[in-house]
Every structure is written in C-alpha cells, then in structure tokens.
C-alpha cells in the first residue's frame, strides 16, 4: 500500500492537500483582512467572495465535496449576490463614517480580537494534540458521500431538517413584510398638486445640468454659476462631492473667468446697435 492511500485512510493530509492548504489559507486570510480594510462596501463584498471561494475549495480538499459545492453555489452565488443587490439599492450614501464615536474603540477591538484568537488557538491546540484524525473515508465507504449525508439527514437529524423548512418560510415571509412598501391607490399625486408643490418649493426651475459640454466630458464636472462659483446641485448625488469639487478646481485653474465675460459676442453687438438706433 502506498503512503498516500494510508494517509487518506487515517485522515492525515496528503502532500497535494498541504500544497492546496498553503495556497488557499493565505488567500482566505487576505480576503478577510481586505474586507475589513476596504473603504468601499462593494470592494468588501468582493474580498469576502475570495475568502468564501477559498474556504469552499478547502472543503473539497478535506473530502466534503458536496458541502464544498454547496458553499460555492449558496454562499458566493446566492448570498453574496444578495449583498451586492442591497449595496446597489442603498447606493453610495451608505458609505462608512470615519468618525470614531467611542474613543480608542479600534485599538480596544484589535486587542480583544488578538486575545480572543490566542485563547481559541491555545485551547484548540491543547485539545487536539495527540488526537489521531480518523478521516471520512470509513464513514462514507458504504454509501458514498451523498448517501451518507442523506442517511444521517433523514434519520438522525430529521426533526431539525423539518424545522429548517419552517425557518426558511418564516424568513421569506418576514423579508417580504419588511421590504414591502404600502401604497394606497388614492394617494397618487395629481398634476395640480405637483405644480403647487413645485411653486411653493424654493426652486421652480429644474436642477441645472452638469458642466459636461462646456469644459469636459465627465459628468462629475459641476456647472459654474455666473459669478464663477460651483453649483453643487448640478452634480448627481451619486457622484462623490469631493471628486466633483476636485474636477471643478482643475478646470478653473488656468481659466481666466474675466476673459469669458469680456468676449465680444456678435449677436450681442447687433442687439446693442439696434437698441441704440
């Protein structure tokens, strides 16, 4: 019997699995750390996808093939897409606030994390040293992996399995109740009401367009008011305000605004002449 087969039978990791672990493990850690440090929530979600894919591949390497594929399909496929969906619905406005509401909370959190991991690792190492891993080969020998899981799911764990169906239905109904917006049919605003509301609001005219055609092709460019100042309402709220101010500054740098005002407009002169006569 070759040593690889013996190793698989006892549950010790083979050389191939070790190589896979030392590639996937750092990738998983990288994804987790990247998720915490990413400023943009969408980047966080993508880092988490990396971690979940690595963990799924580790399940495959450990011999839990079915669970590995379920991990990839359910977690990275369904759950993370749900996350991205909600991120897109909430938009850029859901950005992280940088202000620390409790002083020293980040340092304290880091210390708590390090202490917690130290505690867990020391406890685990203490508990597991000297334990000979058995491996899943014997447990799945008779029916195969799927058959063995089905066997235990539908006999030993039948009641919890039935309970999960109740849980899933409750969750689906609960999500529908929470996300549903009640709109009564009679509440539609008539044109008259909309006109009145518009006249009473401070601005009767539509919002100004961005300064796209005048100076640049980016819609982060704000329009300039007659006095040369920036009109912030001309840029969509989805565009970063800092970015649009930056763009405005760049475009106004070499531009002498007084020169624009002193340009002799042909039409203008014609009008002036007609006025004089």
């Amino acid at each position, binding site marked *: 019997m070759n040593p690889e087969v013996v190793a698989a039978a006892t549950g010790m990791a083979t050389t191939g699995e070790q190589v896979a672990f030392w590639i996937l493990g750092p990738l998983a850690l990288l994804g987790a750390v990247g998720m915490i440090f990413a400023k943009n929530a969408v980047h966080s979600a993508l880092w988490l996808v990396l*971690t979940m894919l690595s963990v799924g591949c580790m399940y495959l390497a450990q011999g839990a093939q*079915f669970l590995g594929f379920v991990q990839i399909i359910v977690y990275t496929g369904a759950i993370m897409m749900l996350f991205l969906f909600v991120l897109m619905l909430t938009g850029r406005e859901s950005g992280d606030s940088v202000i620390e509401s409790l002083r020293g909370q980040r340092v304290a959190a*880091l210390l708590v994390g390090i202490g917690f*991991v130290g505690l867990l690792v020391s406890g685990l190492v203490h508990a597991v040293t000297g334990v000979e891993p058995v491996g899943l080969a014997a447990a799945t020998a008779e029916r195969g992996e799927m058959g063995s899981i089905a066997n235990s799911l539908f006999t030993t764990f039948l009641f919890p399995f039935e309970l999960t169906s109740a849980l899933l239905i409750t*969750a689906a109904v609960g*999500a529908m109740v929470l996300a549903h917006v009640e709109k009564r049919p009679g509440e539609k605003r008539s044109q008259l009401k909309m006109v009145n509301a518009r006249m009473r609001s401070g601005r009767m005219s539509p919002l100004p367009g961005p300064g796209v055609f005048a100076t640049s092709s980016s819609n982060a460019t704000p329009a300039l008011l007659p006095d040369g100042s920036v009109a912030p309402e001309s840029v969509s709220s989805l565009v970063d305000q800092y970015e649009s101010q930056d763009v405005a500054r760049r475009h106004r740098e070499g531009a002498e605004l007084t020169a624009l005002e002193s340009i002799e407009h042909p039409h203008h002169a014609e009008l002036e002449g007609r006025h004089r006569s």
Partner: protein
Amino acid sequence: MNPDYYLVLSALLFGIGAVGVLVRRNAIVVFMCIELMLNAVNLSFVTFSRINGNLDGVVMAFFVMVVAAAEVVVGLAIIMSIFRSRRSASIDDANLLKY
C-alpha cells in the same frame, strides 16, 4: 500534516470577523463580517468531522448554512427598511427602535 492547521485558520478567520464587527460602521459590512464568522465556524465543523470520522459535522455545517441564508434575508430586509426611513446604513445612526 495534521488537519489542526484548518482549525487554526478558522480561529483566525473568526477573530478577523469579530474585529470587523466591532470596528466597521456600515451595517452591510458588519453583516458581511458575521457571514465570515459563520464560514469560519463551518470550516471548523468540517475539520472536526474529518478528525472524528463521522459526518455529523458536515450535516451541522448544512444547518449553519440554512440559518445563515435565513438570517441574511431578514437582516438585509431590516437594513433596507431602516435605510428607507433614515437614508443611512450606518449603525451609529440607528439608535432608536422607533422612527
């Protein structure tokens, strides 16, 4: 190689997730950190199942996945409804049960 390394990795991932929950302020990112912690626990379940040589750990990991899916659906719906009324997904802003 002993499969203990997987347990150490899962402890590290769990710790990173816990620190993320404490540090981040965006409710959706906090949720992602919770998902990371659930994943770390699943990894340790699978490893323990391999060490002990029976499939109970794998079945437990399935149940954790089901509960995680239900939790994500309800939690994201709550975040959406809070965002709709307050225009913010920061956990510092939501300090009242009413409004």
